[in-house]
């Protein structure tokens, strides 16, 4: 046992001390910070990026006079000239865009032109389009003698709350948020199994091609060497994950405090001014909006339960797959030969991930979702997503139990392939050959 600890220690330290580990560990939260700051910056100040702009409106329909609203960055000027003279004037002026609105009759489609020297942004084009549609609609309704008061009451915002009926009474169900978290967890498990499983394989190949493996297994049993490597690398993975969580939380809260405090008001103002809603409407949006809903749901999530499941399925899935990766590493002489053996291992994992993104959210209780969340090769990924939909306890226990059986079994198989493989050189190994190794004494 003492020896396995020595191996774990070496595997762990030799990786954690590497420059690439340190760089990756600190660069990822930094990237998250930059991304986060960038998004906030763009939302808060995106419009200001383009600087102030002025738009000359040539209104041939006669209904748009003073209908466009000026804001901090956009100024509308109204020209009474006909379009040809307006174009001449525009060329000599410093205005940015020229907007031509044709006469409007009963037609369903109208064509509006924007003239400019530079390409207008998509945001500007679509906001002008929306504005014109609104004005025309209002005018048509007024022409039909419909009151503006009724108009304002026409639109009703609807939000669907999900509540579950349980024996304890009604409970807020939290599908959107848990599904999101489940999906993130499933993705992390998928990513970590690949990332660190391949590291296990590389480590085994390195020891084999270095020929140090024979020196080491004259001191420890091959199984100890394999398990020491697998556990050591699992700890590297957990360390990295933990550091990412800590650093990301620290970094985002710092960024949040610095930027959002000042920027939040700006965002709301910007949203308001660009969509033209009133404060009261804004209030309504905030109360029933998706964000609000997600925030409310986050409060109802059983975090310790989700975290517990994550760690269990991460470790179980990783142990199972990395043992297989170790077996592959032991059977080949260099990394280029791993292809044929990698495929059968990666396919169930990729399949599980595709299913959990595409099928599970729509049909969490379907037979496909059920079986994939029970079978050990796919359960670490699929079950993490299904958990959002409150899986019956027996299904969860069955899935966990089978995962334990699964990894004990694969570790056993891998151990038998490994101890033969690491001493085998210069031989192209086939699946049939691997099968034979299982039964060597």
């Amino acid at each position: 046992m003492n020896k396995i600890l020595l191996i774990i220690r070496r595997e762990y330290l030799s990786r954690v001390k590497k420059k690439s580990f340190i760089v990756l560990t600190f660069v990822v939260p930094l990237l998250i910070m930059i991304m986060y700051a960038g998004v906030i910056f763009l939302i808060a100040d995106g419009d200001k990026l383009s600087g102030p702009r002025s738009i000359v409106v040539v209104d041939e329909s006669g209904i748009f006079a003073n209908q466009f609203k000026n804001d901090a960055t956009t100024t509308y000027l109204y020209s009474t000239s006909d379009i040809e003279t307006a174009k001449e004037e525009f060329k000599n002026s410093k205005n940015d865009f020229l907007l031509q609105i044709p006469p409007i009759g009963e037609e369903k489609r109208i064509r509006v032109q924007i003239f400019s020297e530079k390409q207008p942004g998509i945001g500007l084009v679509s906001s002008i389009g929306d504005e014109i549609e609104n004005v025309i609609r209002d005018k048509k309704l007024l022409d039909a003698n419909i009151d503006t008061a009724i108009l304002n009451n026409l639109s009703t915002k609807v939000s669907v709350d999900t509540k579950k009926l349980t024996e304890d009474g009604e409970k807020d169900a939290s599908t959107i948020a848990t599904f999101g978290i489940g999906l993130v967890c499933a993705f992390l498990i998928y990513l970590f199994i690949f990332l660190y499983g391949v590291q296990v394989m590389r480590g085994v190949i390195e020891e084999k091609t270095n020929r140090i493996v024979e020196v080491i297994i004259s001191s420890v049993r091959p199984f100890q060497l394999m398990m020491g490597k697998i556990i050591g690398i699992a700890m590297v993975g957990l360390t990295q994950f933990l550091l990412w969580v800590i650093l990301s939380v620290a970094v985002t809260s710092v960024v949040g405090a610095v930027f959002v405090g000042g920027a939040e008001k700006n965002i709301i103002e910007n949203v308001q001014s660009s969509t033209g809603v009133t404060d009261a409407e804004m209030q309504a949006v905030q109360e029933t909006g998706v964000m609000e809903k997600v925030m409310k749901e986050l409060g109802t999530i059983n975090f310790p339960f989700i975290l517990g499941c994550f760690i269990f399925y991460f470790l179980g899935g990783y142990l199972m797959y990395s043992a297989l990766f170790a077996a592959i590493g032991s059977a080949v002489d260099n990394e280029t030969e791993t292809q044929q053996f990698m495929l059968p291992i990666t396919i169930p994992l990729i399949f599980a991930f595709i299913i959990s993104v595409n099928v599970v959210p729509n049909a969490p209780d379907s037979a496909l979702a059920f079986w994939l969340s029970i079978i050990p090769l796919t359960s670490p990924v699929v079950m993490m997503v299904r958990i959002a939909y409150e899986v019956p306890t027996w299904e969860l226990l069955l899935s966990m139990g089978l995962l334990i059986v699964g990894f004990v079994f694969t570790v056993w198989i891998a151990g038998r392939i490994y101890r033969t493989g690491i001493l085998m050189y210069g031989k192209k190994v086939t699946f049939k050959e691997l099968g034979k190794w299982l039964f060597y004494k």
Partner: protein
Amino acid sequence: MLKIKNIVKQYAQHKALDDVSFEIEKGSIFGLLGPNGAGKTSLIRIINQITAPDSGEIIFQGEKLNPNHISKIGYLPEERGLYKKMEIGEQILYLARLKGLSSADATLKVKYWFEKLEMKDWWKKKVEELSKGMQQKVQFVATVLHEPELLILDEPFTGFDPVNAEIITNEILELNKKGTTIIFSTHRMESVEKLCDSIALIHKSKKVLDGKVTEIRNSYRSQTYEIGFSANSLNGNLPSDYSLVSTSNNKMTIKMNSNTSSNDLLKALIPYVEITSFEEIVPSINDIFIQTVTENN
């Protein structure tokens, strides 16, 4: 020290060891000889408990071989290797601790050996920064650091330059004087013949010969002498007790036919030629090996 009893090891396609038995005395230098692919490495792996035999057993110091013996055996495999990116000092410490040494004990011993083999500046270096010969030295230190009672060296001299080979040979002899039993495994029989007390010859998975080197060689003596001479020649004046095997300008080989002594041969020759040298031809292990193998075939 080590008794190997009826070891059989079967791989999928071929038998690596077929009923091999012999004994190694404590404190001896033992040569495990045989051509490539004879089964030497398979046997060594079994002694190191890397693989298990299909049948037969090994007795180490009176006990059946078990995991407790691992720390008493040092093994230098034919194909050597170290972690390329790991510092030398750290690496040797790690290998020593895997053999069961405590951290403090291991550190002391590494320092002792580094001093002894003039490797002091290497502690912080990585293996990839060292030359092949230097790496071999590091590997040797890693093998003997835990003061094994049995030292197994598989093709120990391949890759060493003559200077380092000399240094390592002397270290091995010194360890042997302190009581370490040593097994040399090699297909280059002439390289260890002078060092070994006893040998076992393995050919095609079978042991074909074993025993003390002197005894084996004596038993293969054929009472043949090489005689250097000057002036004259025998001109056929050789008594019928002897037969002339070959002759050249100033050397001849003579085989004695009956139970006569070397002095009788000298007496018979002196009247005819002037003798400059007189030596019995004792076959080398290599000759004996070739002879045995051809006989067996």
